[in-house]
């Protein structure tokens, strides 16, 4: 009888121990787990991009020093009160390759035309360069790329002798497309700089 009582006592002790042990467990901290799935490149991915059948190599980075922006004595020309003429240089819209802000050789004569205008023109006139992108970048990315395209034309004109203080840059990213269609025939019309002649009233 005494052995049975000891065993029952041991049993009760074990049960008490088991209950207290389960009560002491605490939750491990939760962590976000990223699912372990195989990654495959989606459509439109793959390096390098060859959407338009032109250059298949990575565009070379731009060389030369950047030209700081300031308008100096021309500042009042860009405060919104001057005349803006989109037609004077309407035929000189400069076009860019995808994901590039490099001035292509085919576009250089247009910039030469504009440089000649300002060289010959002694009046107090200036230029607004609007940089644009096609829709194949995210918006913040396109804002910077559009600005870089405007700056590239400004640098080119400055190297041809146009005072950079006469030039203001604006970026519209992909928000002002020239062609809202799909495909390269539309996209290539959107990757552009437009040039606005600014003259005092």
């Amino acid at each position: 009888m005494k052995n049975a009582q000891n065993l029952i006592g041991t049993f009760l002790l074990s049960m008490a121990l088991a209950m207290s042990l389960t009560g002491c467990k605490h939750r491990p901290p939760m962590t976000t787990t990223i699912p372990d799935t195989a990654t495959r490149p989606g459509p439109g991915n793959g390096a390098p991009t060859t959407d338009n059948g032109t250059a298949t190599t990575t565009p070379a980075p731009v060389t030369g020093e950047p030209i700081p922006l300031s308008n100096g004595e021309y500042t009042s020309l860009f405060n919104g009160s001057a005349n803006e003429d989109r037609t004077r240089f309407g035929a000189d819209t400069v076009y860019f390759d995808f994901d590039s802000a490099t001035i292509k050789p085919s576009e250089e004569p247009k910039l030469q035309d504009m440089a000649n205008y300002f060289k010959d023109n002694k009046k107090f006139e200036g230029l607004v360069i609007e940089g644009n992108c096609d829709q194949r970048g995210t918006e913040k990315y396109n804002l910077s790329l559009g600005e870089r395209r405007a700056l590239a034309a400004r640098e080119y004109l400055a190297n041809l002798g146009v005072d950079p203080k006469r030039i203001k840059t604006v970026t519209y990213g992909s928000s002002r497309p020239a062609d809202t269609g799909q495909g390269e025939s539309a996209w290539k019309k959107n990757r552009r700089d437009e040039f606005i002649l600014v003259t005092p009233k």
Partner: protein
Amino acid sequence: MKMKYIPLLATVLVGACYVSIAQDNVIEIRKPTTHIVPISIAGFEGEAQSVLAFDLSALGMEITAPDKAEYLVSGTQNGRIEGRLSAAGAAQPLWARAYAGGAIRAQAHAFANDIVKEIRGTVPIFETRIAFRVQEGSSTEIAVSEFDGYNATVVTHDSTLVEGPSWIPGGRGLLYTSWKNGGEQILEHNLASGQRRAFADFPGANLSPAVSPDGQRVAMILSRSGSPNLWVSKMNGSDLEHLTHTRDEDSCPTWSPDSQEICFVCRSGRAELQKVSANGGPARALRVVGVYGNLTSPDWSPDGKWIAFTSGSGHFSICVAPAEGGDAQQLVAGEDPCWAPNSRTIVFCRQAGNKRILSLLDVPTKHVKDIRQISGSCSEPSWAR
């Protein structure tokens, strides 16, 4: 009873007690957060029902019948919500709580927050707000809404171009880029008063503001030096520092949660993700393995562990990589990801027909839930954190 059977009996009885105790303490059972949790909802109707169903679904739970559910949500709504959460098969609910005051939607969101905390262990997000850009015709404006798109307010009326809203931590206001004065300025907009001031108005472009999580500094893209580069200043505009000198251009700054580092996009030829100390120093590439093409629009998770970003050119995908670099996962079609405070949910935009709409992504389950849309094409969402 024979003596020799007593040890066996004791073992069996101890074992049986242990199992029944473990079943009563079902909160001890933890499943990996990658699985979709079937859950049932009973006793609610109208907006209480729809809020619970939306919120739980957004966190990767599937609303099912009780016999298929792992968890059961039940309760009543009589001016206030009284809600219970039970685990399947349990005799007693895990807890029962009451939610009073405010509108029925707010009560239901608070209940859903508690349910999600129990099942996913994440911080609440159902009473938070987002800001985003909305386009109608050729003009764009900034809008603010609850995280699910409800109670949206358009907060600008400039009929011009605006981009890239960034919350001031604490939610008192936004910084964004506006073209209302002819060129790109960064405006600071106090949401309570509606007052705005020019935060950055340097010559050239002033773009893509990002306020640091500690509210002390602003990262932005300025082209004043002749190339669009990453600059940082204090919140009052002082201590302006030129952090990068990329000859092509930089874009898309996002802060680390400790406000010490900035991840951004550098294009020098091709575009890549880079990081730089907010206190100056060399930038270095973020090593991203397994996802190709242009990687842009990064957003650093509040817990510091992940960087979400957009991959692709035209066909965009939301991707996530470890913040220190490594294997990236391509998750769903879409762009412009922004993390919720829980470092688990992402708000993003995706193409739907001829416009873009805002959606929520539950990263571990890859479950996508569109939020309520306002009219217009919506993009660049930012989650108030």
